[in-house]
């Protein structure tokens, strides 16, 4: 099957790749661009481990075709920190022990960042519902919710 040529922007860098029409954006990120931060937990859009944003919109990259990235701006977990400075969410996740195995962490960070950009002052319930599409099997979510709330507080105070 002939491949499709795609030009896109990933974490601010212009990127080109060739992909099979059946390949998902997640496949492309992981297997063609070597950005393995996004994880495949289900391949059916149920677990959120592959969360990325496309033009600022939070999506499961396993439900998007690679070819759909044409002309878009993709943001992944690899682009959250600025140089050697971690994003407040990243710092708070480490401080609060909000990860155990860490497989869901990239997706949850991308989703939480997207939430705080829309709603800098979410309630606990709002955080829980926003993250309801991101499965974590280790933590029971308690420390994740606390880390997101704490990062939101810090970011509001800094702005």
């Amino acid at each position, binding site marked *: 099957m002939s491949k499709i040529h795609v030009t896109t922007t990933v974490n601010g860098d212009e990127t080109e790749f060739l992909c099979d029409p059946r390949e998902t954006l997640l496949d492309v990120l992981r297997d063609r661009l070597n950005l*393995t931060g996004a994880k495949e937990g289900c391949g059916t859009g*149920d677990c959120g481990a592959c969360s990325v944003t496309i033009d600022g919109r939070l999506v499961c990259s396993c439900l998007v075709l690679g070819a759909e990235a044409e002309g878009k701006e993709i943001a992944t*977990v*690899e682009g959250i920190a600025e140089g050697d400075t971690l994003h407040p969410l990243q710092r708070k996740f480490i401080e609060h*022990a909000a990860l*155990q*195995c*860490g497989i869901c962490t990239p997706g949850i960070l991308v989703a939480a960042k997207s939430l705080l950009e829309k709603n800098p002052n979410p309630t606990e319930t709002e955080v829980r519902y926003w993250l309801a599409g991101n499965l974590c099997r280790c933590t*029971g979510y*308690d420390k994740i919710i606390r880390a997101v709330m704490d990062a939101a507080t810090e970011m509001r105070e800094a702005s």
Partner: protein
Amino acid sequence: MALDDRKSDFTFVGTRPDRPDGLDKVTGRAKFGADAVAPGMLFGAIVRSPHAHARIVKIDTSKAEAMKGVKAVVTRADFATGLTGEFWNVQENVMAGDTALYDGHAVAAVAATSALDARDAAKLIEVEYEVLPHVTDVDKAMAADAPVIRDGTADGSVPEGMHPNVVRYHESGHGDVAAGFAEADLVIEDSFKTEATHQGYIEPHACLASLGADGKGELWCTTQGHWYAQKHCAALLGIETSQLRVTASEIGGGFGGKTTVFIEPVALALSRKANRPVKLVMSRSEVLRATGPTSSTSMDVKIGMKKDGTITAAEGVFRLQGGAFPGAPMEFTAMCAFAPYALENVRQVGYDVIANRPKQAAYRAPGSPMAAFAVESVIDLLCQELDLDPVEVRLKNASKKGTKASYGPRFDDIGLVECLEAARDHPHYSAPLEQGQGRGISCGFWFNHGGETSVSLALSEDGTVQVSVGTPDIGGSRASMALMASETLGIPYENIRVTIADTATLGYNDVSHGSRVTYASGLATIKAAQAAIAEMCKRAAAKWGIPEDAVKWEDGCAVPSGPNAGDFEPLAMADITADMGATGGPISGHFEATPEGAGVSFGVHIVDAQVDPETGKTSIPRYTVIQDAGKAVHPAYVEGQFQGGAAQGIGWALNEEYIYGEDGRLQNAVFLDYRIPVASDLPMIDTVIVEVPNPGHPYGVRGVGETGIVPPLAAIANAVSRAAGVRMHELPMSPPRILAALKADG
């Protein structure tokens, strides 16, 4: 330091530093099972049986082999022959022989130059089946008319006259239960069932295998135990164990489900045939259909109680279905069932039953949560009937040091009474309930485990330390090891780097299971550090020209000690390591042994449930976990284990189940239908860490990983039953089951 000089004042242990792998895990750079690549790598795919039970008549691989890009196809013929015992069972499960034993059972595999091509090629492999009668329910599998799944599997323990699907039997206890029941003021006997659940780790099984015709290989995989993987893969492939080097990736959850092998031997077989590296990654649906869920159970429990709450006798029969292979953990179900209680008369019986389902694997305290559900439900019924307080009744009967355990021996130092007292005194227990809410409590017990353990601790010239351990880090154990090493050596936590070594660079290690890692690898790390300290003291003694025993180790320094030691400035670690090459050579400490003092574990959970009588939906407004950790090394990760165990238990109690159709096929093999708890389902989970030191660990540590999943099933069932006003006998307590129970109750 001897084991009996237990340390109780700590500088580093008990603090909450950042975990050493935190940065890698929040930036996406941590490498999990599916994140590895190799030059010339192929991609594998597995062909699986669509039938619950079928004889494999013929496998035609010719069309797949002819496809462009396909480099290897394997079937059972490509694996070793003549295996026996557990090796044979694992091989049968990894790749079917004559018969497919469950929906999803692997029958062939293919490797191709792309994942998409491998998937297409798998569809070209033609398998001819002769479908056989099947059974998936535990009670039906024991019935006289059940199809015989694997005749001759039963061992000598099974009483005569049982169906051949009953493959193992356990019976234990003491006293005279009939006499005990006769002394009771009230005897309640009831029956319970639980469905199989899955560990639900978010990372599917994944590996990258490379094996040559010379029998030398490399395997990268997500596993709880890479030495186990090494041993089993080598046996299944017919190669020498030491010729296969296995490296454990970062592991994206396991909970017991990654204590065995599934795809790893298949990837190695494909690699050997293609003479190229092969990557094999399971889909979620493969994980659910063809890895190891828990057993399903059917249980009868009978307990007698006096009016004052004293239990006079207890008896339980526990039937566990563990898939088409022996090994359902029914003996643990039986032995854990009544362990929280001091009983003069107790008897427990277990049956291991095979059925056409995947081979069960361990899941956090394997077998114990189901027992607690049945036993603690009956205790709750007795409390309701006799109008007794559930915590007081449990306190009255609680096991303590010296109690003869229901499974035989006497308990050493244990923390159940302390946990129950903490529950009684916790504000949650006395908080008022709202309309439609019920409160449940439950005790939980798990044995914990030691296991073969090797640790190597090497000093660098600058006085920093590298610790190599062999137990994959599932939940922050590298932080705990570094804390224990820094405590022992008296140097900062940041000066220690802990690595999970591969099978070629460290001695044998048992799997990360049995809540053993912080206990056993921790003990080994402490002992290895003590060995390095002894050598450093020796070097200092030589430098000072005084006897070795006139040097002691204090706050990271060698110092002269005793009347004849003389007066010398302390030598810091870095002073000793700086010239260690010239003073006797590199300094390392190591430990290789099987620690046998794991120390059993108890916990108590309190939960409030709100049941909507219109929809049957249950919500959990409040949850508190109380558990004995012995000594919490990194309290944040201890809390995390408590919370995670509770959350998994909530899923098991309310929602999660394997649903098999009449055709014997799994109906809900995706996360949308096998729905684990999401953030909006749960409340914050309060934790209380009780610390009754374990006499078998120098710092008093006892494992905390598993016990947290034992009480939730029962605690939630008790809360739901009280909220709904009707006793629930079957898990999960999904909305349809609750509505049915309400309707039956009128």
